């Protein structure tokens, strides 16, 4: 304690320095991570045979800027080179590139000469490429594969405000203490106060949402559409998520579950064969499909689908939203504890129907006496910490 006056000041500088350094580091890391694309190990293998000139010419061909020998075909009008936030049923340029890289005997020329599936035949009618053109397209696909699927870039309004205010505050502080250009100090004070308030507000809002992913809708490795399956074809959720009534987990269907139908249904009305083929290729290669997980409970909490779907009879949509309308699955709720508890407090339990609840004699007596209409989950222990945290 004694040394705080002398060496404490020195250490204060050290801390400030550390803080700034770590801040810079975090920003640098965040920026870097957005650039690092998924470069497949296959790329390096095939890369050498393509020159920069090939790549440039391939890109023009693909984007319809120059004509193929068979005419002008803008491949990129269907096979998007960049990412979109709506469902594009056609394989993107990146999808094509990956498929070509992963399959040894994949030939664009042959595929176009002998299209399979109705969708592909109609869409590629009258298209053909020469050997040279194929080489150029391949050069471009190589680049696409190297670049990765790309990021969806929205304008980060919040970040702009946050950093803009930060700079303004810094300027105000500098002027207030050192340069003293503006005479009315009320300006500085106002800027600092408003800035701090806004920053605080961000801090609170962002901290509260830390780890929450409401609205999360990532691209999946297969363009599986819940809209097509459970909306259009009206397949029951539990037809594929078979275990949700008795297991804590709802279970992401294994590949063989998909193949139960897709052994026969080899072509989608919108996606053609490209997406469905992925399952068959997974089956042949023995590599399972790596889905992107959307619904993630906060750490240290336990959730049982058996309790909610099996016992409670809750509709899947109550928590997962109108899944049957979603082409790309989106997280509907924030999965926060407040959200869980509000439902536990409000939802009525089918108390009288299930013999399990017979031992709750006091509650039964109250219902018989007409003092109680219904029993909520909270009254049966749905608010107990250890029901979910153990």
């Amino acid at each position, binding site marked *: *304690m004694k040394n*705080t006056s002398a060496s*404490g000041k020195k*250490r204060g500088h050290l801390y400030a320095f*550390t*803080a700034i350094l*770590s*801040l810079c580091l*975090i*920003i640098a890391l*965040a920026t870097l991570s957005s650039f690092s694309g998924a470069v497949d190990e296959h790329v390096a293998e095939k890369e050498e045979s393509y020159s920069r000139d090939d790549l440039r010419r391939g890109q023009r061909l693909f984007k319809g800027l120059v004509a193929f020998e068979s005419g002008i075909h803008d491949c990129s009008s269907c096979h998007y080179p960049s990412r979109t936030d709506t469902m594009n049923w056609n394989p993107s340029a990146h999808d094509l590139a990956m498929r070509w890289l992963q399959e040894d005997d994949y030939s664009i020329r042959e595929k176009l000469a002998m299209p399979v599936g109705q969708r592909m035949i109609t869409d590629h009618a009258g298209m053909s490429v020469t050997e040279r053109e194929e080489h150029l397209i391949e050069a471009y696909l190589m680049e696409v594969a190297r670049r990765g699927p790309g990021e969806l870039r929205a304008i980060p309004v*919040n*970040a702009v405000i*946050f950093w803009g205010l930060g700079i303004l505050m810094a300027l105000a502080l500098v002027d207030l203490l050192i340069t003293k250009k503006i005479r009315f100090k009320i300006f500085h004070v106002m800027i600092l106060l408003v800035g701090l308030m806004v*920053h605080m507000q961000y*801090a609170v809002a962002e*901290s509260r949402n*830390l*780890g929450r*992913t409401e609205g999360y809708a*990532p691209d999946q490795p297969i363009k599986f559409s819940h809209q097509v399956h459970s909306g259009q074809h009206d397949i029951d959720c539990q037809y594929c998520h078979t*275990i949700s009534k*008795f297991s*804590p*987990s709802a*279970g*992401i269907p*294994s*590949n*063989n579950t998909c193949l139960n139908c897709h052994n026969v249904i080899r072509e989608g009305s919108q996606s053609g064969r490209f997406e469905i083929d992925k399952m068959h290729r*997974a089956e042949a290669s*023995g*590599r*399972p*499909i*790596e*889905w992107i*997980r959307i619904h993630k409970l906060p*750490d*240290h909490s*336990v959730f049982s*689908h*058996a309790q909610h779907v*099996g*016992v409670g009879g809750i509709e899947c949509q109550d928590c997962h939203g109108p899944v049957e309308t979603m082409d790309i699955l989106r997280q509907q709720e924030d999965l926060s504890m407040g959200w869980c508890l509000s439902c536990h407090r409000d939802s009525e339990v089918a108390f009288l129907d299930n*013999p*399990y*609840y017979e*031992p709750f*004699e006091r509650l039964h007596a109250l219902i018989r006496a007409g003092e109680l209409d219904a029993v909520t989950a909270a*009254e*049966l*222990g749905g*608010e*107990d*910490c*250890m*029901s979910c*945290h*153990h």
Partner: protein
Amino acid sequence: MNKGNTRYWKSIGDLAETRELSISEDAGGEEQRSMMEILADEKNETASSRRDFLKWCGISFFSATVISACENPVKKAIPYLTQPEELTPGMATWYASTYQHGNEYCPVLIKTRDGRPIKIEGNPSSALTGGGSSARVQASVLSLYDDGARYHGPLKHAEAASWETIDREIIGQLRNAAARGEKMALVCPSLLSPSTMALIKAFREAFAGLEVITWDAVSYEAIRQAHKESFGLDLVPCYQFDQAELIVSFSADFLGTWVSPVSHAKQYASTRRISEDKPHMSRHIQFEGTLTLTGANADERVPVKPTQEIRILMALYDAMAEATGNIGLGAGAVDYDVQALAGEILDRKGKSIIVCGHNSKECQMLVNGINAMAGNYGRTLDNSAPLHIGRGDQKSFERFAGKLQRGEYSAVLFYNTNPVYHYHQPEMIREGLEKTALSVSFASTRDETASHCTYIVPDNHYLESWNDALFREGHYSLAQPAIHPLFKTRQFQDSLLRWMDREQDFHHFMKQYWQEQLFPKQDAYPDPASFWTHSLQAGVLDTGLATQAMPAYRSGSVREVAMALQQMLQGEAEMEFSAHPHLAMGDGTHANNPWLQEMPDPISSVTWDNYAALSPASARSLNLREGDIIRINGQGEWPVLVQPGQADGCLSLALGYGRTQAGKAGDGVGSNAFPLSRRMAGQRLLFGPVDSWEKVGDGHRFARTQTHFSMEGRAIVRESTLDKYRMDPSAGNELHAYHEKHALTLYPEDHFDGHHWALMIDLNACTGCSTCVIACQSENNVPVVGKDEVRRRRIMHWMRIDRYYNGEADKPGIVFQPVMCMHCDHAPCENVCPVAATMHSKEGLNQMAYNRCVGTKFCINNCPYKVRRFNWFEYARNEAFDYHMNSDLGRMVLNPDVTVRERGVVEKCSFCVQRIQAAKVTAKNERRRLKDGEVLPACVQSCPAEALVFGDLNDKSSRVAQLIKDPRNYHLLEELHTLPSVGYLTKIRNPE
């Protein structure tokens, strides 16, 4: 206050000075320092100031803002390509199997989650063990994931080699040796598996000149030999303690390690459980030098040193012979009223059982004689259903060791045996192996013998293997793999089959054996296929016994026995040593299991250590103090532990310690006591004279859990005697009625709708075996903290076995008391938590929300039972605690239903709430009421004595609701009116 209660004390210091705060006891310099200082020391910094704290707050606030702008990590969900039919994500799959090692046998159920075994439970279908298990069985799942000690593949000269090379070279050498008629040997312990024995027989036939040497580290050979003398039958009889009204044991630790402790505990407890409907119980007399678990449970315990004990055995034989008109030994008088004991035995003809733990043929013959004179054969001892243990042959192993040392063998194979550690002359094996052309070890984990072998052909862990077992005649069980081999290992039996050039693997070999040999013995299944499938699913098969007349007892030459015993008694000395298999360590094979190393010995509460136990009087006479280090017979170094209840003149050592090649947890813990063992008349004896001893050091600090939890001077364990109980069932428990009557509270009355969970513990049935402690650790992801942290009183076990002494220090009575969270209805911990991290559930559980806890430890301070534990460190992913939570493989054993606790939070027993929740969902889903006994916390499930009963107090017909009304029921510190949900039934002794 002490009305009707015996005065209990916990340690010697406690007895001398009850007022002294035990926290200062054996506290070294480190304990006196504050936590802040220790932490600061670790970081090489001075204590932090408040200003530093504020600075860090500022930085973390700023970083939080920045980090919160970052994206959430992308996580993948990878389902199976083809989902196995038997596997449901999120739910456990159970496989029946069998744990076996030497004489340890337990049919088990293996709980697997997503294909990895995470918990072992006793198989309730077994008539022998009935769902019980032992600490070693519970801990065996951890050794599956022992990344460091398990071999990752075959080795040649300690270098990794391919299976093809290994097989080619070994087959070549074996064939050459066989062709040249050279000597070969396969050394194995006595095996329980009938099909493995059939396979070994076939292997021996395939390679002429191969000897099979059977040898056990801890042997029961003498029982076999004695029965050969007495009945002409080479067998170990089946001991039926449940049929006995009087149990007399000479050093046999039958509840801890002797023969079949799991089934004995079950049988023993059935004779000890007492109620108003059944107001009688067995009487148990124990003569022993070491204070064993069994002795601690005895109604009358006579601490005598080994030679003295044999004198008493001889005198008892004489007294029995005299009373029944047989020829006696003519042994001298002893300082014990054997006439009265003989009378007591004869009063209960056919209802007593006499057992002896010494591996001496003559002692066992006397025991046979006494049992025969008491008419116990055919009643409490069954020769028609023998136990298939103790086939080891000491003499042939000694011959083997001699020949090996002379280099007479050209090939030696070691299966499941480690003579370099277990044999008392390890140099013979070591030297011999250097002269042997082909030495092969099938060890699955590192061991001392394997390290001297040319080839290591690693066996699978038992959870990866097929096997079967015949422990008791007519009681078969099967073992099946619950997981693919984690490493490039191969089952021992498959190696033999491969070397015999058979196409068949052991799975099919065994299946064929069962369908050919055992299918005809049963009539439950009509065809071999369904017989196999159902047996595999059940894990156990009872074929019944062929009724046959058993040969009668013949006494043989009493004179010869007397002479041999007299010779043995010439070794009588002022100070004698006695070595015993340790309750947790056994013979030391599982020494690298940190759960077992950290299991407090129920008697001494020492962890991670071996010691020389001495009685207080002996320690005084030798001028030794606790912590002094002594060397005995020039063999090893042991710290002295002053143990009340030890016989004067008897120095006790545990076996199973002092491994040098076990792995990072087991290496160098304690000293090896096997080299002390003595040969006499072809037997290996584990006791003998202390010819020399010297003090080589002092100041050893034990890592004991004893002084952590002193509950001073209060009626914590209540005890009475059978006579008093018969007169008044609430004998010894008068305080209960008093406190019930005078209870006053400001709190409103509690009411629990639905369930009100409670646990009843019958102190009369509890043997203190500590299985529940390890079961709890396995179920609830309780971390191992290591010796130093235990010394700092930071052991993390959620339940503990408290042990109290009463009476005199040289002849104390001992009681065990399992203590876990009491789940008080008026819990003192709940009131003091500033963040409401601990509170009461609607089902009477005292809940602990880890993610809310900020670690003030107020609750720990306010808990009168001291059952709460604080995570001083991050125990997972922390190289300082590299026991099992630090490696990717080790973490596989964690129960996914239980949170791995963070640094800085408090944790404690939850009544296995994850099991309660799972059972509730199942019942709700099946639209039925929850059945009594459906929810079994890990401790309750594992208890071989069924001493713990869990259930719902609101269900008036439940067992627990019945037991809580028992006049014996009381609660811990009930004068505080905390209204615990855990009740204890008073201990009743039968001192006659």
